[in-house]
């Protein structure tokens, strides 16, 4: 039970949503549009990218004495639009012995939609039925056809650029025109074509023509600083602030949720939270609760929502809470490309991300790992800032100083390219989260303890990434600086959580025996409780999850609206 006495307020909202990222923002937008009175709780502070008070767009590096270097609450650089990080003071998490796991949490309006590459890929038909196809993991209780109308609607509402390619498991969408490749991307594309690696325009949630009152991209390359013109997707500016114009959305920031409260009948009655500004325990009451605090934070809230009706935590009669969690597999390789030395200067900023990418292009039946990965590319002539061309000693001259060194920086700038592999992990029973029996955060809320294990299915896949990227660089006439990581080094696999695509832990399913949620992301054990973040995911796919979180949240919101109208909720 909460420490202190939550102060009940007289208002009963139609819906309380916890979390303002992609899933929470979409639910708030759709439910207020349908007429519901909604309260949205966010653990961090207010944020509005439109304002120079928040956005650092178009700053010069010399505008700050730090030159863009990281700060404690901006680990990706002082101008990154996301407040949060791998560690948040007073909000620890723990790891089982031997576990390597990193957990990035955002604490701000819009959450981690302020911190991502806007890569927006639909899951394909195969991604919902992997167990049927290869016997591993589980099938989703829904198919691509069930979610397709919502992907279409997300495309129209939020906006995305890309190209229709007719690839079977990388479905097309309703795309704005993609930007033409940068100089090094032309070279990569040509190289990939020669190697029969599919290479197509990127699919990013950045608009290239006006949409719903938002201006198109102006190509400053600084999406991660918070776009003042709202030309890219962030939940705060594209969903939540517009939803507030309905007059039906109440936003509570600095509201750290402790638990979902339930009544004697076991149904949800609202959420208990700590007002971080005063330290007071408070309560909001609602007829329906939607959790969208991020897959793992929502699982934690549910585990902490214990009652006599829900002794193992809420939505956990199956015992699957915290289980079947996955992250994207990842590894990166960079190389020096001699033919790009002394590239003629031009504006290569473009959008804030790659203009091309490589979807999974091979047949796993001919490989020693079961699932695919996509490839992201980087390089170019971006704005110089902290960290500029670090490791100059890796270039052919091997280091140096003085006039010769100064010339090296000039000629080698823009002659490096990099590849990042992002692949699908299979859920396994050694990778899960549970409540730490002892450690609590500064609010007195028990914290998560992580257990993590990669399997050969992931290691072999990452090995294949490394080999592919090295082959690409060699084919470009380039030179890779780092030696091929060994098996003992895990072939360079990133820690669990490090790619910031954690999913599962509150998975949906066809049966209440082995899932927490039904096909509508509604808790089997509590019919007025829904989850609208990455928690319901049954499998990871080799795609970034945000577009599917948005589509699922939109679908869940439609279901809630329909049930309300029918009087069922």
């Amino acid at each position, binding site marked *: 039970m909460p420490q202190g006495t939550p102060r009940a307020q007289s208002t009963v909202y139609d819906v309380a949503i916890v979390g303002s990222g992609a899933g929470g923002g979409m639910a708030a937008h759709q439910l207020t549009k349908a007429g519901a009175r909604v309260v949205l709780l966010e653990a961090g502070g207010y944020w509005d990218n439109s304002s120079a008070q928040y956005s650092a767009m178009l700053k010069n590096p010399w505008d700050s004495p730090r030159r863009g270097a990281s700060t404690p609450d901006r680990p990706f650089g002082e101008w990154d639009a996301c407040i949060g990080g791998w560690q948040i003071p007073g909000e620890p998490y723990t790891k089982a012995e031997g576990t390597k796991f990193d957990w990035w949490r955002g604490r701000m309006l819009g959450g981690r939609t302020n911190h991502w590459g806007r890569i927006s890929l639909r899951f394909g038909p195969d991604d919902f039925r992997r167990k049927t196809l290869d016997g591993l993991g589980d099938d989703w209780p829904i198919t691509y056809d069930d979610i397709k109308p919502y992907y279409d609607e997300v495309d129209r509402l939020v906006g995305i650029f890309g190209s229709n390619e007719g690839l079977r498991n990388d479905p097309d969408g309703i795309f704005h025109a993609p930007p033409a490749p940068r100089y090094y991307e032309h070279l990569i594309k040509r190289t990939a074509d020669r190697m029969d690696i599919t290479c197509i325009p990127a699919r990013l949630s950045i608009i290239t023509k006006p949409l719903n009152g938002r201006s198109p991209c*102006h190509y400053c390359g600084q999406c991660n600083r918070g776009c003042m013109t709202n030309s890219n997707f962030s939940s705060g500016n594209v969903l939540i602030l517009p939803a507030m114009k309905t007059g039906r959305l109440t936003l509570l920031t600095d509201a750290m949720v402790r638990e979902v409260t339930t009544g004697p009948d076991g149904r949800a009655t609202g959420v208990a939270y700590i007002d971080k500004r005063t330290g007071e325990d408070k309560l909001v009451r609602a007829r329906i609760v939607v959790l969208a605090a991020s897959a793992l934070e929502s699982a934690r809230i549910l585990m902490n929502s214990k009652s006599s009706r829900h002794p193992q935590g809420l939505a956990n009669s199956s015992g699957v809470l915290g289980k079947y969690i996955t992250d994207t597999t990842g590894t990166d390789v960079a190389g020096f490309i001699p033919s790009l030395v002394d590239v003629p*200067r031009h504006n290569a900023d473009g959008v804030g991300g790659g203009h091309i990418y490589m979807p999974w292009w091979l047949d796993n039946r001919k490989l020693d790992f079961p699932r695919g990965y996509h490839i992201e590319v980087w390089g170019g002539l971006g704005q110089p800032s902290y960290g500029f061309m670090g490791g100059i000693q890796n270039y052919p001259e*091997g280091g140096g100083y003085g006039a010769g060194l100064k010339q090296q920086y000039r000629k080698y700038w823009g002659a490096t390219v990099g590849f990042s592999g992002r692949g699908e992990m299979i859920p396994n029973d050694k990778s899960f989260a549970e409540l730490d029996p002892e450690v609590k955060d500064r609010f007195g809320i028990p914290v998560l303890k992580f257990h993590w294990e990669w399997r050969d299915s992931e290691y072999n896949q990452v090995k294949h990434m490394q080999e592919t990227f090295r082959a690409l660089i060699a084919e470009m006439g380039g030179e890779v600086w780092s030696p091929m990581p060994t098996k003992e080094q895990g072939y360079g696999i990133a820690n669990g959580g490090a790619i910031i695509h954690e999913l599962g832990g509150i998975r949906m399913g066809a049966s209440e025996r082995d899932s927490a949620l039904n096909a509508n992301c509604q808790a089997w054990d509590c019919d007025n409780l829904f989850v609208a973040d990455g928690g319901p995911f049954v499998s990871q796919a080799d795609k970034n999850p945000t577009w599917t979180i948005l589509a699922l949240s939109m679908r869940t919101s439609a279901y809630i609206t329909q049930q309300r109208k029918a009087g069922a909720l």
Partner: protein
Amino acid sequence: MNEMNRREAMQHLLAIPAGMAIAPDLLDRAAAHAAEAVEQHAHEPQQAQGAAAQPAPQPRPAYRPKQFTTDEWRLVRLLADYVIPRDARSGSATDAGVPEFMDFMLGENAGMRTWMKNGLGWMNAECRRRFGTGFVSCTDAQRREVLDAIAYPKKAAPEVQAGVQFFNSFRNLTASGFWSSRIGAADLGYIGNRPVAQWEGTPKAVMAWLERNTK
């Protein structure tokens, strides 16, 4: 910069074809940004001109480092300019304010402060071992002997590995500070950080260069 040049610069920065929708407030901010940049550049030629036409500039009050001792400050300024000296194209690391940038960063990060102080100490110790005196009071040839020993990691002797590691990081930090300065970015020829109405892709001349280079 005269008024005409300034107007041209503004027009160049803000050229938006008719029919493109870009938020008016963005243009306002970009205009303010550009005006500020133009304003700042306008002062540069004056400083470069001879003293005859201008009253002698008041010497700026000397910067007082917060994280370095007086001796360390002398050494760090010297070392930064050995890494990035003035040449025909641009100024040196100290011209670009790199030591002041380092002083700021050290104030932000205790680990970096310890690393820097240990590294500067290593430089002095190595000079004393070789020449009986610290880096600052060595001759240019003596300093270069030490730098040559540590600036090329693959050729460096095992005895100077600590110096190699320090210098790798010192070089990185100097480059961070220099190339992210106004002087450094101009030297690089960075073109960007501005609203572009229509992304035209890679310019034809660059594509032609790419074709020639990557056959």
